[in-house]
């Protein structure tokens, strides 16, 4: 097991290195000369040369990359020249927690609704629950989250006035206010997952329920709920986690849209406004951070398998 883990870690490090090369190349590809952008329209040749030297832009690209990577690892990501804010603080301490909170809360809602729906659909096959689950799966997965968000704002925010329509209150500052503000965005983003989770739960539970050990559990006289939720669901977790892991990209895509619709100051909002303002170093920090996050999350999903399925642990 340890050997496999180390190999996996090595591969992950290589991918992280590739992520950093890609993020670094991005800034090199970005249109415009960074020195001219920072100096504005009015500058002398001397100040141009001086800034070029200060930024290390007169050195070979590989040296520049080394400097950039070292600075990145140390958390020195530069300052935004529009808001004059430290980009590391903006991205890691302000934007990232918002996105992670939104994603976690949405996933929680999706699991709480999706798993029971899937179980019901599997137990009462071809009933109305089953039809509902299938409809949810197809509709929820395809419905554009940014339009769903607008509808929810319209109906529950403006129309009924039950929820605030925009803004973010950190749940760790004021828990109930935070939850209240997060409700609509989390439903918007979670809707995308509910159907998927219900569908996977349904199909893998159907598969598992035909296994001999389920029959054995029933024969031992175990109550129905125990057979389903303990013996059955344990084996649904694997495919469920696989799908959640595979759909992380979709989650991030939805999170960007949802943040913009509800004006949540998360990573998606940060990158979007950076693209609109042509602030390339903020975009660079954003893509590097999401890339790293994406790789690490995928690694974590991969590692959970071994905890969930003892058979994988013993296998060499």
């Amino acid at each position: 097991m340890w050997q496999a883990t180390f190999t996996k870690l090595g591969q992950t490090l290589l991918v992280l290195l590739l992520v950093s090369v890609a993020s670094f190349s991005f800034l090199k590809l970005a249109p415009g000369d960074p020195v001219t952008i920072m100096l504005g329209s009015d500058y002398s040749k001397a100040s141009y040369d001086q800034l070029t030297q200060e930024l290390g832009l007169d050195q070979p690209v590989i040296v520049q990359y080394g400097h950039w990577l070292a600075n990145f690892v140390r958390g020195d990501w530069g300052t935004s020249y529009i808001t004059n804010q430290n980009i590391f603080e903006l991205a890691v301490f302000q934007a990232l927690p918002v996105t992670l909170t939104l994603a976690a809360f949405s996933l929680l809602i999706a699991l709480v609704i999706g798993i029971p729906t899937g179980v019901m659909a599997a137990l009462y096959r071809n009933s109305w629950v089953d039809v509902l689950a299938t409809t949810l799966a197809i509709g929820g997965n395809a419905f554009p989250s940014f339009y769903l968000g607008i509808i929810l704002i319209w109906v529950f925010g403006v129309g009924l006035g039950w929820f605030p329509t925009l803004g973010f209150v950190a749940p760790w500052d004021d828990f109930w206010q935070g939850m209240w503000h997060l409700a609509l965005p989390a439903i918007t983003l979670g809707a995308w997952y509910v159907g998927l989770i219900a569908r996977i739960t349904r199909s893998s539970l159907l598969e598992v329920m035909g296994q001999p050990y389920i029959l054995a559990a029933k024969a031992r006289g175990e109550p129905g709920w125990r057979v389903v939720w303990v013996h059955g669901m344990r084996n649904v977790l694997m495919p469920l986690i696989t799908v959640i892991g595979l759909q992380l990209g979709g989650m991030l895509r939805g999170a960007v849209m949802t943040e913009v619709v509800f004006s949540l100051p998360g990573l998606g909002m940060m990158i979007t406004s950076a693209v609109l303002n042509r602030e390339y170093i903020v975009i660079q920090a954003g893509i590097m951070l999401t890339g790293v996050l994406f790789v690490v999350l995928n690694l974590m999903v991969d590692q959970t398998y071994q905890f969930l399925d003892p058979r994988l642990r013993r296998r060499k």
Partner: protein
Amino acid sequence: MSHALDLSASFQASSWRRRFLQPLMRQRSAVVGLVIILAYVLAAVFAPWLATHNPTAQDLGAALQGPSAAHWLGTDSFGQDLYSRLLYGAQLALIIGFASVALGLVAGVAIGLAAGLIGGRTEWVLMRIVDGLLAFPELILAMAFMAVLGLGTENLVYALALSFVGPFARMTRGDVLQVKSQPFIEAARLMGVPTLAIIWRHVLPNVVSPILVQAGMRVSIAILLESGLSFLGIGVVPPTPDWGLMIAEGRGFITIAPWISGVPGVALAILLVALNLLGDGLRDAFDPNTQKDA
């Protein structure tokens, strides 16, 4: 000579029907999806004849009107006719969706074929580039490319295509490696068939169906990303009739004129559902790797 050609053409047609059309027609929901998509394609193709107004003609006197005889689906805040914009929007969404997937497919398959067939250092370098691309979520990748390329319809197609290269390349390489080890490739090589002919006649036909399944599923992602990026303001530029832009524009008027975002929003949702149905059907019918949902 012409007789022989006719024969081979009719043979190909019937085998196309047997290999492609029949298995797909067995998937009922895929047929529903296909019919809806065909309706959108027809609307897009005949948009110039079906439209009642110029999609970008502004008439501030008629702004924010609900559905009426003059404007079948109402007007937006610039007085642009929503029905006409909807039709031209379908055109744009389908063109961007299919074009970006096609471009990404061609580039990705080329890279995958090169990596799988050449092997060695070339393969290592190519696949590391692909790994680097795949490490990012596709929306973030497309946003980064848009930032580099600049806004506009054409650049949006390129940005989306670039973000699709990775999956196609990885998949093609995997399939090529599998096919390459088959005895019939070895046999063709021993018979002295030129390498390019082997690739074209023996390798490609065997990797094409999973790639097409993948392409079918990508189109809906492409259209979702296209409208999403335009919604964010980093895709197509106004006043181009784009659904994402229209939804963004209608967002501010949701309480007084919900149809402005509703018309493109519902159209987009239906198209995406249809594309997903067709994509799932394609996968169930042609991809041997995934079993059908129980």
